[in-house]
């Protein structure tokens, strides 16, 4: 195989690995949007806090990494519930845009709280995972791990959504929230469960991202926008669409990053997004309402 092709293949493979994590990110946001009809603008900032949690638990307090991850997932899930109870719930009847802006306020708050508490320095786990060499390609172990964990996480969510009563109710409420009390479902409880789930997914994403990236108060800005684009492209609230869009975007970013910088990958992704809006405005996986 020519050198060029190996690089291309490596980039494609890295794209797939990145896609898994992006799919996980968009899943959490889609869940919240589909069920509660609110966009958590501060979703990436919850992940940022989770990354700090990992940093402190693992690097500073030397907790075993799996335990640290478990604590982080639970902690961010609790943050999700708090966000819902303190900010979203009082605004459930308000104009949707107010809910959006309020979570924008939370974004400000979380970023600056992190700045004040942890400083602006970049921090990392100081954990060096090996690089796998196969067929002349270099695949980072942490990426592979992130990919697998993201897939496992998504399968668990899928099982929860299809096999349990609560999961079924979560899907049902996204389709018709008005008649849901007729089924004996307390929508307030479902909202709390969904917020916890969305937060938990953010926590999981945090554990995976911190393996690959440094954490700093503004780290959310580097993957927040891309997550929103993925959700919009996949049609907000549509899990399958988000999943497909995540992989498409990840490939664009990975290929863009192969020839230019990673930032250019993002720029291409955005350009692609605009083009797609002209071509398929309903999103990749259209769901006409």
């Amino acid at each position, binding site marked *: 195989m020519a050198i060029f092709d190996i690089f291309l293949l490596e980039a494609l493979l890295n794209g797939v690995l990145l896609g898994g994590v992006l799919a996980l990110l968009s899943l959490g946001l889609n869940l919240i949007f589909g069920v509660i009809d609110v966009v958590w603008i501060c979703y990436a900032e919850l992940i940022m806090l989770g990354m700090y949690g990992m940093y402190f638990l693992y690097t500073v307090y030397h907790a075993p990494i799996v335990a640290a991850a478990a604590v982080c997932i639970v902690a961010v899930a609790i943050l999700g519930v708090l966000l819902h109870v303190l900010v979203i719930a009082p605004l459930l009847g308000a104009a949707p845009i107010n809910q959006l802006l309020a979570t924008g306020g939370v974004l400000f708050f979380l970023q600056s709280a992190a700045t004040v508490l942890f400083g602006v320095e970049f921090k990392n786990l100081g954990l060096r995972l090996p690089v796998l060499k196969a067929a002349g390609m270099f695949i980072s172990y942490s990426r592979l791990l992130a990919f697998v964990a993201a897939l496992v996480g998504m399968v668990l969510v899928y099982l929860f959504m299809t096999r349990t009563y609560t999961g079924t109710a979560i899907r049902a409420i996204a389709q*018709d929230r008005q*008649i849901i*009390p007729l089924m004996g479902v307390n929508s307030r409880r479902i909202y709390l469960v969904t917020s916890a789930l969305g937060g938990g997914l953010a926590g999981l994403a945090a554990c995976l991202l911190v393996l690959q990236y440094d954490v700093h108060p503004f780290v959310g800005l580097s993957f927040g926008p891309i997550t929103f684009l993925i959700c919009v492209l996949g049609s907000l609230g549509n899990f399958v669409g988000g999943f497909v869009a995540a992989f498409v975007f990840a490939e664009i970013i990975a290929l863009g990053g192969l020839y230019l910088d990673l930032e250019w990958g993002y720029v291409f992704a955005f350009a692609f997004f605009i083009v797609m809006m002209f071509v398929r405005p309903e999103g990749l996986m259209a769901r006409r309402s």
Partner: protein
Amino acid sequence: MLALKSVRADYTTFQALFDVSLEVRQGEAVGVIGPNGAGKTTLMRVVSGLLRPTGGSIVMEGVDLVKTPPHRIVELGIAHVPESRRLFPRMSVEDNLKMGSFMRAARPKFRRRLDVVYELFPRLRERRAQLAGSMSGGEQQMCAIGRALMSEPKLLLLDEPSAGLAPVVVEQVFDLVTRLRAAGLTVLIVEQNVQQVLRVVDRAYVLKAGRIRAAGAAAELLASDTIREAYLGI
């Protein structure tokens, strides 16, 4: 079994029900008839808790429904089949039925109830994996009624079950009401399809502009000329 006394209901700027009193006794089938916009759907919604009345009382077997949280009302044995069916369109038929037995008491009985419903509507068994939104209107109505029956209710509220269906299917729906009654279910049914509904209910109320204008045995209402002309338009 169910008693409404002087119930009043409002939408933000609009009063939809004035001083509505109505009673449904155990084992009865009761109809509420009236033209479009009379407040029939509103009446159903205040009973099942989707809308809170602004006055009056609603009591089901001694329990005050006005003070019961909406999601608890189904636990008292009231199942509401809403107007235009309102299935969860992108969920399978069986998942829709599963939602019908969401309440704790119904969950252990899920399999058994599923058999009962499939027995009643063999079509649904064939279509169990199909997305509810992709079925025909009649099948959707069956699914909606099936979903309500999953909770093993004592009182079934049907809001215009025949609306938008082909005449043959309308027949089936009214047949079903008769069969359900025979099985011991109490039914409160709202209809615009006056003549047909009066054949399957024992008693009926005439609702117009938010007020009960007449009430009586179904046969009486059908026979009375004044009522036929003034309210039923037949």
